[in-house]
C-alpha cells in the first residue's frame, strides 16, 4: 500500500466545471512528486483536494492508510505552501511558525526548540521578530517553507510557490527546496506549470492536461519516451518540432524528406516530432534548413529557420559554432531519435 493513494478522484465544481477526471495515482513515502501542466488543467484543484480545501466529488484519497475524504483539513496533518505565501500579516515570523504548533497543544519549550531549528535550517533566524511585511520576497518564501517544515507534517503540498520570485531567485530556491526535501525526507507534491522546474525537482512527474494525467513517470522517462504529442510538446525546452507527414508501410514522408523502416504498423496521416537537440549537421542530411534567426545563449545556439512548408523549425547546436542568418544547413536525426504521433488523436505510434 502506498503512502498517498488517489483512487478515481473526480472534481466537479458547483458551476459544472469538471476540473479533475477520475484520476488515480500513488505517491510513495518520501517521494517528490510534481504535477505539471498548462494553466487551468486542474493541478491546483487536485492538490487542494488532497489538502482538504476542496470537496471530493467522487473517488477516494487515502493518506498513510487512512481514508481522508471526510477528514477536516485541520486534522489531516498536511502542510501547504501557497503561491502568495499566505503568511499571517499580523504575527511576526516566530509566531507564524509557532501558530500551527500552538494549536496542537505543544509545550512552549518544545515550540521554541522546533521553531529555532526550522529557522536555522532556512536561515531566517535573524528575522524571527519581524512582521512579514518587512521581508523580501525570497525571505517570505522561506518563512512559508518554515511554517510547513516546523510541524513535520505527513506531506508537503506546494502550489506554484516560486512563481512570484524573479528568475535568479527562483533557480536558487528551486535548488534549496530540493535539498531541503532530501534532508527532511517528507513526501512532497509540487505543482508548477514550468517544465524546467518540474524536470529538476521531481522524483516522479505527472503531466496533467484537461483534468487528466497524460503521463506519469520519472522526468527522464517522460523526456525520452513521451506517450502523446501533448506531453512531447510540453516537456523539453526549446519545444519539440512538429512536422506533418504520412506514414505508409513503415515509410514516413514529410516536408521534403523520407524516413524508412519506421517501427510502427500505423498507416495514415501522422505528426513527426523531432527535438531541437536531437539533430546534428552533416554533408548530405535529411533535412534542409534555411536559417532565419539565430539566438545565441552562450553555451548553445538556437537556430530557427524554414524547411519547405514548415516555419520556425528549431535546431540546437553548440555555442562555439558560428552560423549566419540566411545560410543553409543540412541536418540529420541522431540515432533515430524521432517520435511519430497519430495525427487524429495525438497518441504515439512508434
Amino acid at each position, binding site marked *: 500500500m502506498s503512502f498517498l493513494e488517489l483512487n478515481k478522484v473526480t472534481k466537479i465544481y458547483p458551476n459544472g466545471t469538471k476540473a479533475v477526471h477520475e484520476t488515480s495515482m500513488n505517491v510513495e513515502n518520501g517521494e517528490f512528486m510534481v504535477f505539471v501542466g498548462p494553466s487551468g488543467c486542474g493541478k491546483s484543484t487536485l492538490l487542494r483536494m488532497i489538502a482538504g480545501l476542496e470537496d471530493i466529488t467522487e473517488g477516494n484519497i487515502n493518506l498513510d492508510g487512512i481514508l481522508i475524504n471526510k477528514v477536516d483539513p485541520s486534522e489531516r496533518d498536511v502542510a*501547504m505552501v501557497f503561491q502568495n505565501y*499566505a503568511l499571517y500579516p*499580523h504575527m511576526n515570523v516566530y509566531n507564524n511558525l509557532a501558530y500551527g504548533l500552538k494549536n496542537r497543544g505543544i509545550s512552549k519549550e518544545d515550540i521554541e526548540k522546533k521553531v529555532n531549528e526550522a529557522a536555522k535550517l532556512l536561515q531566517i533566524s535573524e528575522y524571527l521578530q519581524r512582521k512579514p511585511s518587512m521581508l523580501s520576497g525570497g525571505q517570505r518564501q522561506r518563512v512559508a517553507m518554515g511554517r510547513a517544515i516546523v510541524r513535520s507534517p505527513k506531506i508537503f503540498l506546494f502550489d506554484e510557490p516560486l512563481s512570484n520570485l524573479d528568475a535568479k531567485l527562483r533557480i536558487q530556491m528551486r535548488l534549496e527546496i530540493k535539498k531541503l526535501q532530501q534532508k527532511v525526507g517528507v513526501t512532497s507534491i509540487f505543482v508548477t506549470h514550468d517544465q524546467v522546474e518540474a524536470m529538476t525537482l521531481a522524483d516522479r512527474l505527472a503531466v496533467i492536461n484537461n483534468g487528466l494525467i497524460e503521463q506519469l513517470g520519472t522526468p527522464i522517462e517522460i523526456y525520452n519516451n513521451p506517450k502523446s504529442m501533448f506531453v512531447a510538446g510540453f516537456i523539453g525546452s526549446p519545444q519539440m518540432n512538429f512536422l506533418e507527414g504520412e506514414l505508409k508501410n513503415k515509410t514516413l514522408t514529410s516536408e521534403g524528406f523520407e524516413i524508412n523502416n519506421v517501427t510502427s504498423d500505423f498507416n495514415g496521416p501522422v505528426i513527426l516530432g523531432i527535438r531541437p537537440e536531437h539533430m546534428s549537421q552533416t554533408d548530405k542530411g535529411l533535412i534542409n534548413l534555411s536559417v532565419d534567426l539565430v539566438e545565441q545563449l552562450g553555451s548553445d545556439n538556437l537556430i530557427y529557420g524554414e524547411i519547405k512548408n514548415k516555419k520556425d523549425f528549431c535546431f540546437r547546436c553548440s555555442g562555439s559554432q558560428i552560423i549566419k542568418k540566411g545560410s543553409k544547413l543540412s541536418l540529420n536525426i541522431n540515432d533515430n531519435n524521432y517520435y511519430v504521433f497519430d495525427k487524429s488523436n495525438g497518441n504515439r505510434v512508434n
Partner: protein
Amino acid sequence: MKIKLSQILAHIVLILGVLLMVIPIWLSFASSTHDTVTILKEGMKFGLGDQLTRNYNEVLNEKGGWSEEVTAAKMFINSFIMALGIATLKVIISAMSAYALVYFRFKLAVPIFWLIFITLLVPLEVRIFPSYKIVSDLGLTNSYTGLVLPLVASATATFFFRQFYKTIPDELLESAKLDGANSWRFFIDFLVPLSKTMIAAMFIFMFVYGYSQYLWPLIMTTSEEYWTVVMGMKIIFTESYEGVALPRTAERFAYIILSMIPPVLVVVFLQKWFIKGLIQTEK
C-alpha cells in the same frame, strides 16, 4: 526651501477647518466662565471671565430634577455606561454577524445580509412604540439593560465589517485551517487582530451615537436615576429671575463643556488605532 502655492492653499484650508471646529468650543468655554446675567445681556463671550470655579462647582454639585437628587455627575455616568454598553455590544455583535455572513457560506447569507441592511431604513425613532412596548413588557424600563439593548444591533457596523472581511484573502483562512485553527480560533486569532483599527473606529462612532441618544432615554426612563446627559441639559438649570423662568446660560455652557469630556477621552484613548484605521489597513 521653496514652498509651493498649493501647499500654502492647503494649509489655509486646513487652518480654516480647524477654526471652524474650535471656535464654537472656545466660545462655549469662554462663556462658561462668566455669570449668566452678563451673557444674557452681552451675548456670548470670546474672553475669559472670573466665574469659572463657581460655575463648574455649581454644575457638578447641583441637585436637580423633581426629587432634587439627580446630579450632573450622575447623568454623565449614566450616559457613559449607556454609550459604553451600546458601543461594545454593537462592535461584538456586528463583527460576529459579519463573520457568519462572509465565512459560513450558507444559502441564506445574502438575503439575510440584505435583511440586516434594510434595518438602516427603520431607525429607533421610527419603531419607538413597538420597541418601548417590548422593553416595558420585559420589565426593563428604568434599567441600563433597557437603555442599551434596543440599540445594539447595527447594520452599519455589520456592513463595514463584512466589506473588510471580504478583502481578506481566502488563502489566509485556508492556511490557518491547515495549521489546525477552527472557526472560533480563526475569528479570535486572525479577524480580530486584523480588524482592530476598524474595531476602534467603529467603537468611537458607536460610542458617540450612544452618548448622544435623546429620545430613547427620554421615553424609557421615568426614574431620574437613569437620566442621561442630553436629557439633563434641557431639564435642569433654569432659574426664576424677577418672576420669569430664565435659563442659567453660563452653567449650561459649563455643562456642555463637561459633557464633551467622556467622548473626548474615548477618542484620545483609541486615537492611535483610530487614525490608522482611517488612513491605512494593515495587510
